[in-house]
């Protein structure tokens, strides 16, 4: 099976869907002639022309709204944010419009749109470029929120997201574009709302998404050397959430550590913790642990930036607390 990058997987997903459906088009800053700020749209302009690969003026509020309008009248826009940090400029269109138009119109209008782009901290880009905003979007009924961790998931989930009739917030890991995974040549789709066990284990459940899946897998390797088998559960979609998958894992292991790169206060991990205690309290052998970034805006200096974010050793320490080994 070919091994390709997360970036190529996303690119393939868009090429295949744009080939399949003439109503799909992409719009955003630098998506055309520049081939994407992160080169995710490489080759699209040449293949699909300026009619369907639309470079925009610098105004997220504008092209998000244009996408919503185009979706309302029958197209299936993919709106690329250069980073999700800039989606905040467009949030009224996403939260108060895209997410609500189907409901507000009594089902008369729907908004089949994908807002996609990199999300979460990268490397030394400061507080305004390093935010993990999934908890914002996961809060909103009417949106679906997808956060793939691997190239395989990225491709299958993006294809499904483009075909979905609901607005989908598709948050890519900014540091994952170069990561590789086996991706089949034949077409496949992955359902939204279904998680995936990234590693099986019996002693503790690690719940993580996007970049933190990799951190958890690294931690699990180290723990395995000490005889601790961690199960890594990747919900892949935060809304709707595959609660049953997480709950079943915790019922098996009796311990749960939730790892997210976002801030702790009102972070999505708190919701996961609520669900676990609600559905699996009697199975828990220890309090649920959370590992998050520190509750501060991201600093620029490398040492500080590393210190703020969850690292492998933080996950290991949390697992040991959950196992009463610390």
């Amino acid at each position, binding site marked *: 099976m070919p091994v390709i990058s997360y970036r190529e997987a996303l690119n393939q997903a868009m090429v295949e869907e744009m080939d399949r459906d003439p*109503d799909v*088009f992409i719009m955003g800053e630098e998506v055309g002639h520049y081939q994407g700020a992160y080169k995710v749209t490489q080759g699209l302009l040449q293949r699909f022309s300026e*009619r*369907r690969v639309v470079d*925009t*003026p610098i*105004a997220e*509020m*504008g*092209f*998000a*709204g*244009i*996408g*919503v*309008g*185009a*979706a*309302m*009248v*029958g*197209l299936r*826009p993919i709106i690329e944010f250069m980073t999700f940090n800039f989606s905040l400029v467009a949030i*009224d*269109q996403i939260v*108060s*419009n895209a997410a609500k*138009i*189907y*409901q*507000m*119109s*009594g*089902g*008369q*209008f*729907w908004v089949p749109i994908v807002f996609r782009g990199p999300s979460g901290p990268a490397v030394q880009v400061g507080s305004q470029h390093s935010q993990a905003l999934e908890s914002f979007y996961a809060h909103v*009924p*009417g949106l*679906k929120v997808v956060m793939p961790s691997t190239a395989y998931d990225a491709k299958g989930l993006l294809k499904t997201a483009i075909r*979905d*009739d*609901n607005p989908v917030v598709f948050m890519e890991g900014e540091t994952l574009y170069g990561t590789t995974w086996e991706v089949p040549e034949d077409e496949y789709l992955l359902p939204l*709302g279904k998680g995936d066990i990234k590693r099986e284990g019996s002693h503790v459940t690690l719940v993580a998404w996007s970049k933190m899946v990799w951190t958890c897998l690294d931690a699990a390797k180290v723990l395995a050397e000490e005889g601790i088998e961690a199960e890594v559960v990747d919900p892949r979609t935060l809304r*709707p*959430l595959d*609660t049953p998958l997480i709950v079943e894992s915790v019922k098996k292991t009796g311990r749960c550590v939730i790892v997210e790169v976002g801030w702790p206060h009102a972070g999505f991990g708190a*919701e996961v913790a*609520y*669900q676990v205690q*609600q559905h699996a309290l009697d199975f828990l052998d220890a309090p649920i642990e959370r590992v998050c970034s520190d509750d501060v805006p991201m600093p620029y200096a490398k040492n500080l930036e590393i210190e703020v974010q969850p690292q492998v050793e933080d996950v290991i320490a949390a697992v040991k607390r959950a196992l009463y080994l610390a």
Partner: protein
Amino acid sequence: MVAVQMQDDLRRVLDDEGKLLQGVKVPQLSEDTLGQIFDVMLMVRVMDDRMMRLQRQGRLGFYMKAIGEEASHFAVAPLRPTDWVFPSYREQGAWFWRGYTVTNFINQLFGNELDPVKGRQMPVHHTARDLNLVSISSPVGTQIPQAVGAAHAAKIMGKDDVAMTFFGEGTSSTGEFHVAMNFAGVYKAPVVFVCRNNGWAISVAANRQTAAKTFASKAVGYGMPGIRVDGNDVLAMIQVSTEAIDRARGGDGPTLIEALTYRVQGHSSSDDPSVYRDPHEPDAWEKRDPLNRFRTYLKHIGLWSEELEAGITERHNQAISDALAAADKLGPPPIESMFEEVYEEMPWHIAEQRDWLLRQARTKSPHAH
């Protein structure tokens, strides 16, 4: 006092007395069409009057009148049914013109079981997909880039549809207005922007929204024509709109129309303008009342009589009374309907909330997510 005065560049067809001006372009409208315009204008006037009275009686939660601004709604008149309208919340005439029924209008206000939007939106926030009238949004201005999106979508799909959007002069201060105008100019999108300059954004006068001499002048910066039109002159509205729609459909891009009009009464049923503006300010504008002017014009050309108007008014009143009587017999939307159409397919966690609610009437699920 309102800063905006009548100026030379203002496009008009009728004078204040409803007489045709010399040497101006007049829209070519059949007698039937003229009659329909008058009919719909009267409908707006009668409906607004009846609904505001209901609101004052405590039978309706909220209402927004369009009195004095009805002519501006007829910018939609030259559109094709396949064109799209992205309205604001004060264009009742646009809805009736395109065929929105009195029954739907009233059921929406009451949010009852036959409300087309199923009790989910504030009064006057209508939707009619069958009439290409999109959902009205409460945050002002979000409809403007959406209209550009619909227009641009027509280009992508190779159709010659045009999109028209309405907003007040206050909304021209929003970022949405500026980004949408900019995109439309750059993409030459087939869109018509109709700015209803009614002098007041709730309590804030038009001269506190911009230091520009006119709102139409904002078009210059975005590379499109900006046209000022007497928004109380229905024939001028239709003429200017026809030109803008033709321009858009012909591939020459967008137009900003500033329709100069006046909000004779409050912003909404929750507003009392006497606390922030001279109570005599509306007097001058009432002399320019769009309905009176059009009525006088019709009279000049022999298309108006007292009996005719009385008949139309009676018919509208009867339709409203019938719709109200029918609405009185209707119940509220079914409780389970609030879980529907959040998503195209109901996710398990919403189904769980619905099932809980139906089992345990009026108690919340323990955060059933």
